[in-house]
């Protein structure tokens, strides 16, 4: 018999209120994976609000044609900071925070393999982010006039060279991300080590929850692709300060070289961000459909296939740089191929829901939104993989629509699902379902209203990253719909924050296992004690709690 029944909820002593300074000290010096996970996710949410405000200002500027609410210089800084923040300071910390908090709990471990390295990674990320944002105050250093980076989040050379980017704004971009990148590499190594070495008794690789599988693949991807970006950034620093000429086209350097370096990082980065979304959906959809995940081995295989193929598609971001017909054909084929494992995942989730008894709690609603929106994102992705179609759509608003359907409609919806699903475990309190539904509906409406029309403006020839547009090009309506959608999204996010605050204050107590779920984290108390499990758990199947709840028909008979 397993030892799960020994990890009952302990009656927790009423928490004595500690002085604020002491509490702060505890958080700053912690090496506990759960606290670090919470700090990652909370800082991610703070940066999300900042980047959302930046987007709001841009949508205000684009509401009218020929608008001059903000200057082009400010607009360029806003979209650069919006993109950089969303990828590196929102997406990355939140997914790393999810991995931090959940992976040890799901594999029955007490912490990550290297807790101090884990804390080191977090602080590098946070200070990297603060360094980047300090550029608003000190970009021009002693000259007084602060400037944030304005070269776009993929910082194409030679726009980043000394000749075209004077001052220090680009240096803040390089250094902020370089520091955070080292943190990501450290944490990725930590997660891989943890998964390889610290699984509880009985948890073979084939019995790991899909969440853990997918985050392991993500960590391997981070280990492989972060170094090229770091290397390219160091080369760019050499160009800017030591007179190197890697990307200096006026001295024979190559502009395209930077693009290769960047996208060798940048495309797998999309999967680094998206796979954790898949991971969360793969845990949440089965629980709320009351069915085991359909085709577990295929799901693992598809994840690994996405990891592999994802390493070989980077140049589909470069179909317009004038590659040979051969290269364009190759990257078209590779990119289309990745639709197959991605499709398998969607079908397997569908297969999981099929024949189930679906409960429409907020986490499931967000997963359903994710499924439909990610379907759209995948299909527009196929359009962009068709290189001739991409010659038209690349760098247009269609691309903006596509990747927001991936990263907002896909990733952010699953992040919201994650927060609604695991919040009870993390805090011991339930988020309000009623408020959660308001949050979901407002956000779903706002998101689609903002980003669906961008497909159209892109097809009608509107390039991205323009601070204004001429009247009479047929783009006004679509831009105005997009901007109106933002109002719904803001309302939804405010409701979400309010939901969290009020749940922390007087949310319904959650108990250990509020969703009647099946993975190990639900067998310990909510919130889990510092040591996670009183005794190391032992598992016999992928759903240890199912076995416990259904001794008459345990999973291990079927796996």
């Amino acid at each position: 018999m397993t030892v799960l029944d020994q990890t009952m909820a302990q009656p927790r002593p009423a928490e004595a209120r500690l002085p604020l300074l002491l509490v702060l000290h505890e958080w700053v010096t912690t090496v506990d994976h759960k606290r670090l996970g919470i700090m990652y996710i909370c800082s991610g949410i703070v940066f999300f609000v900042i980047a959302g405000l930046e987007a709001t200002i841009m949508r205000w500027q684009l509401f009218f044609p020929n608008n001059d609410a903000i200057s082009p210089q400010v607009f360029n800084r806003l979209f650069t900071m919006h993109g950089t923040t969303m990828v590196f300071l929102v997406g990355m910390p939140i997914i790393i925070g999810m991995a931090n908090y959940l992976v040890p709990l799901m594999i029955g471990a007490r912490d990550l393999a290297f807790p101090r390295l884990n804390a080191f990674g977090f602080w590098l990320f946070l200070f990297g982010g603060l360094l980047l944002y300090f550029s608003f105050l000190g970009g021009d250093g002693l000259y007084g006039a602060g400037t944030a980076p304005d070269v776009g989040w993929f910082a194409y050379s030679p726009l980043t060279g000394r000749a075209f980017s004077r001052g220090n704004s680009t240096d803040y971009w390089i250094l902020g991300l370089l520091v955070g990148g080292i943190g990501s590499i450290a944490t990725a190594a930590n997660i891989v080590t943890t998964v390889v070495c610290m699984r509880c008794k009985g948890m073979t690789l084939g019995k790991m929850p899909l969440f853990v599988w997918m985050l392991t693949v993500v960590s391997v991807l981070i280990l492989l692709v972060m170094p090229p970006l770091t290397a390219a950034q160091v080369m760019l620093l050499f160009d800017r300060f030591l007179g190197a000429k890697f990307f200096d086209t006026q001295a024979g350097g190559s502009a395209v070289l930077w693009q290769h370096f960047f996208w060798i990082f940048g495309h797998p980065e999309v999967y680094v961000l998206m796979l954790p979304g898949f991971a969360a959906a793969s845990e949440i959809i089965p629980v709320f459909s009351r069915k085991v995940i359909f085709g577990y081995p295929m799901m693992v295989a598809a994840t690994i296939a996405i990891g592999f193929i994802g390493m070989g598609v980077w140049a589909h971001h470069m179909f317009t740089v004038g590659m040979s017909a051969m290269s364009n054909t190759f990257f078209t084929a590779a990119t289309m191929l990745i639709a197959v494992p991605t499709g398998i995942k969607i079908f397997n989730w569908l297969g999981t829901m099929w024949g189930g008894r679906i409960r429409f709690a907020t986490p499931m609603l967000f997963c359903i939104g994710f499924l439909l929106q990610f379907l759209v994102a995948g299909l527009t992705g196929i359009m962009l993989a068709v290189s001739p179609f991409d010659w038209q759509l690349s760098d247009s608003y269609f691309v903006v629509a596509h990747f927001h359907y991936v990263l907002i409609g896909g990733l952010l919806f699953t992040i919201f699902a994650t927060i609604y699903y695991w919040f009870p475990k993390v805090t011991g309190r339930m988020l309000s379902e009623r408020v959660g539904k308001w949050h979901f509906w407002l956000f779903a409406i706002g998101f689609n209203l903002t980003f669906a029309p961008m497909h159209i403006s892109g097809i009608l020839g509107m390039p991205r990253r323009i601070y204004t547009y001429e009247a009479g090009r047929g783009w006004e309506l679509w831009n105005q719909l997009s901007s109106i959608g933002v109002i719904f999204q803001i309302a939804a996010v405010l409701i979400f924050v309010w939901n969290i605050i009020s749940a922390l204050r007087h949310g319904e107590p959650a108990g250990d296992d509020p969703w009647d779920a099946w993975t190990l984290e639900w067998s310990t108390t909510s919130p889990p004690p510092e040591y996670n499990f009183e005794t190391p758990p032992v598992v016999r199947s992928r759903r240890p709690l199912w076995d416990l709840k259904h001794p008459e028909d345990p999973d291990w008979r079927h796996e």
Partner: protein
Amino acid sequence: MLLSVLIGPPARKRWYPSAIVGLTFVLSVAGLVVPAFTAAAAVPIQTPNIFEPVSTPAYAVAELSWLVLAITGAIFVVVGSLLVYSIVRFRARPGDEGREPPQVYGSNQVETAWTVVPLLIVFVLFLATTRTIITVQNAEPPPDALKITVVGHQWWWEFHYPELGIITANELHTPVSDRGNRRPTVLTLHSDDVVHSFWVPRLAGKTDVIPNRDNHMWIEPMEPGTYVGQCAEFCGTQHAYMLLRVVVHPRGEFDRWVAEQRKPPVMDPRVQAGRDLFYSTACINCHRVGGTVATGTFGPDLTHLMSRETIGAGVAANTPKNLRAWIEDPDHLKPGVNMPAMKLTEDEVDKVVTYLLTLK
């Protein structure tokens, strides 16, 4: 005890929220996509709609794009309907509490099917795509094709017609083609500074304009008219106002345009004062007026300035009033532009403008 923990808030048993998710979604996508394509026919000619091609490579791309849209649209309808169906059909109903549905761990046949079918679809798409890549990229231009060199600058376009000895800016002029009489235009793309991208959606897909690298593309417009486009790769402060116009002339008219452009600049004696002022200020460091001391190459060629519809790479119509405002302070019309305000007096500005207005 574990089994007796709270099961959480009562699960919602009504089915309609989920159905609404699906419906809203399908309707919003359909509701946006369908009118966009029907509206496309009614929008003014100035809309650079990629689905209203007028040039051979743009036709090829649009044709392939329709095929891709049809296939992906069909996939969306099928998979979306399955999702919505399963959400509605398999919703939890009252009385389901505590009963678990049959656990299905997978199915080799079904999983093989939904691996193989997408592979086949992808294969078909791949073949169709390859054909279009080769038609567009490997097309051999006829020897009498018009050759133009495009130079991207922050933030304007320079056009050289090496065989015709013409240099102009921001407005590209080409002859029309028809099936019997093909006259495609081959563009060689250079950049003088950072990466730009040449995009006139109704004529062809975009091609990046990269420093230290030669890129090529071609257009073959089949209908006379003016087609708008703009730089599509972020290139700095005024990326938004790096607009492009392509004027496609009926055959005879193009030859007339060429003849006009090859003429030496007008030397109107009535604007001698303005011309002297122009020659004696820093204007000539950046601007060229053919056959004179003005030989700068950093800014647009002004030899036939008044033959152009716009100034500042499309930021304003080329009217005397706008021209005056531009010369007084270019930064006011186009914030961040590289042309400085020359600090001329009112009188001097008048003289220079009067002179420029004669450069027809």
